[in-house]
């Protein structure tokens, strides 16, 4: 049987659910209603509007929050991935399972759970009060938003790094040790460089959803964090200006593609192998 045929359902799926909607959004972003009903004319007005100072400020704010979340995920995720890769094979799969388990619960529910934990008369403050410690106001702060993002997106950082570390040829590590490198040197000069593709995939996988997230800042940020995702959502659901919303979405997409392209330039292997390449 021709194995190529097996990819057809996937191609159909990707065309219907990604390519066609993206084309529609693009189309929406460059037209506006014409003078007659049901006619349309070409227009770049939505892009000009999307590029004004206020909206660029929103984009920048989202970028900063996404960057902070991605950095936090990397700082927590790399040691975690390293730790998991050092476990016995059996324990490894168990820990990975534990890591994946929260993802079976709807993200909205998990965010609501954090609201219950962090709110003023919530679980965290009850515990603090029990030990006679001062009350903390954590909900509706930058901290809560970044916490929510890290909590939701951390597995996307750990898994690719873990896979990359596992793939490092044990012979290379042995050779380094054989030739007199200390464990620290072996890590810095052999394992870490070889795990960079995993890091890059991880950063991409965390940065993308953080940048476009709108539910987490809404719930845990108390509506005070205007992310580009919130702005786009409002154009579709509130003002009903799909053209402007589409232009904002295209702007976000361009920004993300640019970031991914910049990231890939740091990846020494992406040119000659498929590793570390984001899955599209």
């Amino acid at each position, binding site marked *: 049987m021709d194995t190529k045929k097996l990819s057809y359902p996937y191609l159909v799926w990707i065309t219907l659910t990604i390519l066609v909607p993206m084309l529609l959004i693009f189309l929406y972003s460059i037209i506006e209603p014409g003078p007659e009903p049901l006619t349309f004319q070409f227009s770049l007005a939505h892009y000009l509007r999307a590029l004004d100072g206020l909206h660029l400020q929103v984009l920048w704010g989202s970028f900063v929050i996404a960057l902070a979340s991605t950095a936090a995920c990397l700082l927590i995720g790399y040691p975690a991935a390293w730790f998991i890769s050092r476990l016995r094979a059996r324990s490894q799969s168990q820990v990975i399972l534990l890591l994946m388990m929260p993802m079976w619960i709807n993200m909205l529910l998990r965010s609501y759970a954090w609201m219950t934990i962090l709110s003023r008369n919530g679980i965290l403050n009850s515990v603090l009060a029990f030990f006679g410690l001062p009350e903390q106001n954590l909900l509706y702060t930058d901290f809560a938003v970044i916490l929510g993002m890290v909590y939701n997106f951390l597995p996307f950082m750990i898994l690719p790094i873990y896979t990359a570390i596992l793939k490092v040829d044990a012979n290379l590590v042995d050779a380094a040790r054989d030739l007199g490198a200390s464990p620290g040197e072996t890590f810095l000069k052999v394992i870490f460089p070889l795990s960079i593709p995993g890091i890059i995939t991880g950063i991409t996988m965390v940065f993308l959803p953080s940048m476009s997230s709108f539910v987490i800042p809404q719930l845990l940020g108390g*509506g005070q964090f205007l992310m580009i995702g919130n702005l786009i959502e409002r154009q579709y*659901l509130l003002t*009903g200006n799909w053209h402007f919303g589409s232009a904002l979405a295209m702007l976000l997409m361009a920004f993300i593609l640019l970031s991914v392209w910049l990231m890939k330039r740091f990846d020494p292997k992406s040119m000659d192998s498929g590793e570390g390449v984001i899955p599209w």
Partner: protein
Amino acid sequence: MKKLLGIALFVLTLAGCGNDGREQLFVYNWGEYMDPEAIRLFEDEFGVRVVYDTFDSNETMYQVLRAGTTQYDVVFPSDYKIERMISEGMLLPLDFDKLPNATHISENLLGLGFDPQNRYSVPYFWGTVGIVYDTKVVSGPVDSWSILWDEAYGGQIYMYDSQRDSLMVALKLLGYSLNTTDMDELAAARDLLIKQSPLVIAYVTDHVIMSMIAGNAALAVVYSGDAAFIMSENPNMNFAIPKEGTNLWVDAMVIPKGANNPDLAHAFINFMHRADIAEMNTRHVMYSTPNVLALEAVKGEVWADNFAYNPPREVLDGIPMEMFRDPGAYLEIYDRIWSEVLIGAR
């Protein structure tokens, strides 16, 4: 291949299950806005099946109706949205011969600006927007929106995460109309909200209900019906309608054009205003009923005996009430102003 066919058939059967021969009525209402028992009673009495969907904002509801992917028979928009839907020809004129129970509706809630002749809508719930406050924390009388700018309550204030409701508070405090289209007035309201932002814990919607019941804040801008529920759960909470005036609103039942079953839709609207059903719903939701028989039935009960659920006539007459009008193209200007508030607040 046969297996695939089997699966396809199975899926088709499942999809068809929705229709078990009974007539169907598609209802689109706000979340948590009806006693499920009332729907069950209607289904039993009329031998039909009600497909009940919910929305969380007028704008979402409007986009869904415009998209036309589901043909709803009965929808529950608010005043200003009804005004817009009437002007766009989206609604069916009602046949009041089929709505005998509409006579149970208080005259005070008829003939309002959004549907002056009451041709398209039947009021379902109504109310005001005011301040819920914790009497244990807030000292002195609460009678003005200005208390939401009082630095003594910094970090203890919830605002409403809705552009028009939050702008309304600032506009009213400044003495302007909540429907203003004057850019200077809107800019003044924006600046006032930015000035307030350091005192605000969060801009929230339904979450304010659980938060105030838990006593997480001292002051919150809330809809009167939510206030009635908060007060019934937490006796320390009280409700005030600020003297500068506020938004008087009505959510009403309408039948969109293109409804598949207008007769049954009329029957449903009529059923909602049968005295016992209207009472059941107002008890369940705790929003103020326009139905005088239902209001009489709950009169004197603790949860209903306050300014939130049943403000005395003299209070309503003494405070300048205003209803939202359809903002038209100003919706985008409000949206931009709200973005400016949130960016300015950072």
